[in-house]
């Protein structure tokens, strides 16, 4: 199964969710700054990277975890993915797309903009860290629901 976490830039919330899924970030405490900084792609992608689906790792169940930044085209992305699955007759249960944007807060938006768009990482990154920690338990909860759905064979995340 391929699980694709998507958000605006593919640099913060989706990376965090993927890392939690893979066990690279804790599920029982808030992550330290170094733990977030050391994640691959965390606050690294630039505008030219948007749209690229990046492989992050494989979880304990053999599912491949990916991330993608699709900017504000969430609906377009989901329609595109669903349409392609149909065109290529791919089993829908083999691809799961998880939108992490609902768990993004204003700190992550502000930090992401200043760090990635303006290049002010010195300012943006600490703001992003604060934002990630603020939404962290929601993201952990999302990932846990994803895992429960996969384990129970449910096709849709509720």
């Amino acid at each position, binding site marked *: 199964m391929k699980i694709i976490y998507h958000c605006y830039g593919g640099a913060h919330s989706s990376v965090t969710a993927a890392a939690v899924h893979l066990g690279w970030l804790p599920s029982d405490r808030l992550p330290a700054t170094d733990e977030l900084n050391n994640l691959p792609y965390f606050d690294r992608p630039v505008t030219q990277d948007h749209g690229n689906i990046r492989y992050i790792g494989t979880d304990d169940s053999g599912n491949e975890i990916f991330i993608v930044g699709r900017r504000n085209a969430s609906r377009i992305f989901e329609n*595109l993915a669903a349409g392609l699955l149909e065109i290529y007759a*791919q089993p829908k249960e083999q691809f799961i797309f998880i939108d992490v944007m609902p768990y993004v807060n204003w700190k992550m938006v502000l930090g992401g903009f200043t760090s990635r768009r303006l290049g002010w990482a010195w300012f943006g990154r600490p703001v992003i860290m604060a934002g990630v920690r603020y939404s962290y338990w929601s993201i952990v909860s999302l990932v846990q629901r994803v895992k429960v759905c996969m384990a129970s064979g449910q096709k849709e995340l509720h």
Partner: protein
Amino acid sequence: MKIFYLCHTGHHTSLLAAALHTGMIAENQKNPWRLRGFDDIKSGDIGTPYYVGTDGNDAEIYTIGVWNENMVMSRTLNDLINLMEIPRGQWKIVDTTSHASRWTIFGHSLKRLGFDSLAKMFFKAGVRKELKGLAAMVKKPDKSGLHH
């Protein structure tokens, strides 16, 4: 082989290009806006691939709406098809957004505001402006926005 033509909605500029490709319309077509599917899209459906037909080489021709995110969605489309383990060379992506005329683009804005009839007038004007350029592009697909 599948060929995906991209534009803002998948039902305007890219549809013209796809129709030229399949021979459904000619470069000097009168009233090309009468094409099946032209301007027949709701905003919530943008992104869903639209099957246009098959060309002389049995390639399936589709259009996809990507709004203003043509570069981003081109990459995503490419990567998604790769993830599905489709052999390379079995698909092509043609971005027609640069061929959209100002009339068509303004028509999109009008349609978003709910002025459908007025938008249609602008789409018709846009079609006339775009047809020649799209016909030239379709004849030379490898040199114009082709990715795979």
